[in-house]
């Protein structure tokens, strides 16, 4: 942990604005991927609607910020509340089903949110999205620069990681893994599958919501793309590359994906092919993602 903080401090001191903002974005996406990992990796709940939680919180934060200013606490609160509410709605609707139905139901619900974001022009800006956001602030301090955003994203990522780790290590997390592996036995042991999964969903929602709330301030923009199902799919791809079942793999996955997209696309128009190749190679050679590979290599 000290090493992480030291590394972050060094980066914050030496990296330029562009890199800091890019790293902040990687961290925010990483938190979203990590929260998705709780569902997919530990709960076996394959969701294609995670962008609704992440992007929905981004919209909520942007709308609130335009009204009442970009206070960090207010933003995180708004984001987490939105994530919780959306996750609760999604949980109630989808968690009675499983497997393919769950996948389709999450996809449908998320697309409904996209429809709302796309058509409710007065509130969400429609296809144009929302811009002209105030700067993020904490009390009297404005957190507008890239360095400030990075320094907000790092503790958020660290706290989210610690929360996720302790959730997984706690009895509820073990029970979640149990519902994935042996649902019938878990029911026989007296666990309610729904209750366990619903709680996992809520934690994931709050986490994705907190990260999503900061996204508009990194991009200075939020648009319907951020609640579209293709972003959900991107999050899943990041998760697979990083490593399903490894919490910090989420950060690796988002770094690899965004890195390829941002850096290699200058050299080739076919960068998506490259993402595909990385994806296939990951599945073939590193079934547990980069994180799994690193773990195997270490041991």
């Amino acid at each position: 942990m000290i090493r992480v903080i030291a590394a972050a401090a060094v980066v914050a001191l030496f990296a330029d604005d562009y890199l800091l903002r890019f790293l902040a974005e990687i961290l925010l996406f990483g938190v979203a991927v990590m929260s998705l990992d709780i569902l997919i990796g530990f709960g076996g709940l394959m969701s294609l609607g995670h962008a609704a939680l992440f992007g929905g919180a981004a919209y909520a934060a942007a709308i609130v910020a335009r009204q009442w200013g970009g206070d960090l606490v207010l933003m995180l609160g708004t984001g987490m509340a939105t994530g919780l509410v959306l996750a609760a709605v999604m949980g109630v609707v989808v968690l009675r089903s499983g497997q393919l139905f769950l996948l389709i139901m999450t996809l449908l619900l998320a697309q409904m949110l996209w429809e709302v974001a796309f058509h409710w022009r007065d509130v969400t800006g429609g296809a144009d999205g929302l811009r002209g956001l105030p700067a993020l602030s904490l009390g009297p301090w404005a957190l507008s620069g890239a360095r400030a955003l990075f320094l907000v994203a790092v503790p958020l990522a660290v706290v989210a990681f610690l929360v996720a780790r302790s959730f997984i290590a706690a009895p509820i997390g073990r029970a979640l893994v149990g519902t994935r592996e042996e649902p019938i036995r878990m029911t026989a042991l007296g666990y309610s599958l729904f209750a366990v999964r619903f709680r996992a969903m809520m934690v994931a929602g709050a986490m994705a919501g907190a990260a999503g709330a900061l996204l508009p301030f990194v991009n200075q923009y939020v648009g319907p793309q951020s609640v579209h199902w293709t972003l959900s799919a991107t999050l899943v791809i990041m998760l697979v590359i990083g490593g399903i079942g490894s919490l910090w793999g989420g950060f690796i996955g988002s770094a690899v994906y965004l890195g390829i997209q941002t850096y290699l696309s200058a050299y080739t128009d076919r960068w998506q092919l490259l993402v595909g190749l990385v994806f296939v190679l990951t599945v073939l050679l590193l079934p547990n993602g980069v994180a799994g590979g690193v773990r195997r290599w270490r041991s």
Partner: protein
Amino acid sequence: MKLPHQRLTRRLALGGLAATTLAAPARAQARPLKIGMITSLSGPFAALGESMRGGMRLLLTQSGERFADRPVELIVEDDQARPDDGVRKARKLIGQDRVDLLCGVIHSGVALALRDVVTEARMPTFLLGSANDLARRAASPFILRPTKTNWMLGSTAAQRTHQTHPGARVVTAASDYAAGREFVGDFATTYQGLGGRIGRQFWTPLGTPDFGPLLTAIAAERPDSVYVFFAGSDAVRFLRQWKEYRLAGRIRLMATGACFDQEDVLPAVGDAALGGINTFHQSPTAPSSAAFVEAWGATGKGLPGEFSTTGYVCGQVIRTATERSGGNPTDWPRTQQALFDAPVETAFGRMPFDPRNGQAILDIHVNEVRAVDGAMVNTVVYTFPQIRDPGPDA
């Protein structure tokens, strides 16, 4: 206790090294003018983005890769027609590649998303999206717009209808997204302002596979004229079905230029487009674009459409900006003033810039699709000279 400390310092050193090398700006002996272009090379507008890049490349080749004796380096980035990705690419061009100027963008959403980013970074930008807001509430002192706004096409289409068919009852049909809403909204407002009658307004989702129901509904309305906005594959499908449903020739069809784009649409629909009227800032038969049309044709690509011309014109404006600022267009107030002081001669015609919002003032042509040697060609039949967006007054 000792081991972790050693590892910590090694990491520190490595991290610091990596951070400083990444942060070090690119230094060169004779500094070329770096131009960053953001356009859509994948996603729904891939063909248009390819054309835009082609137009810009043609101009660079013609200029010997030098503007005002300064070598020019063009870096093109793909936004996938997605605002978030466009923002990330803009940051990369500004922060990492350290470009001197930014240009490009097809998707209005991307253009609006970039507005705050380039304004905060104080990055001189030639922004090519066409949402009205870019010339109005979202205008920025760091953005010049050497292209149309949607209002310019919608309102001139209404004026033309009023000129040739006064009193005609017009129904409208358009793709249901931001651009469609603006084109049709501006058409309807202007037309009603001139005393015209607007019938029903139809909206179809972007990427409609079958226009049959829409066409039957239009036929049932029996209007004098239809005003439509569809682009790309939507336009192709709409025009083909327009002919199949035998509405061609019975109802007067008026559209925005994109619906009859010379490069993107006309080769794919053939004579189904014959007789279509459209208002556009681009036409292969406009006298101002003759030289460009010939040069473009010499590359073996046929007649140019909107976005190849737009890319070329953007290059022309940047070249002029470089010349007028003595090879240093990044001296932005001076460059801007030089462009405001005198119009630029471009393939879109004589182009003055409106000092209020940096928006180009353009000739808008009324094109009729005619058969020339078996090919469908947008032929200029009338020109609205020097149309200026109402800008902040709107």
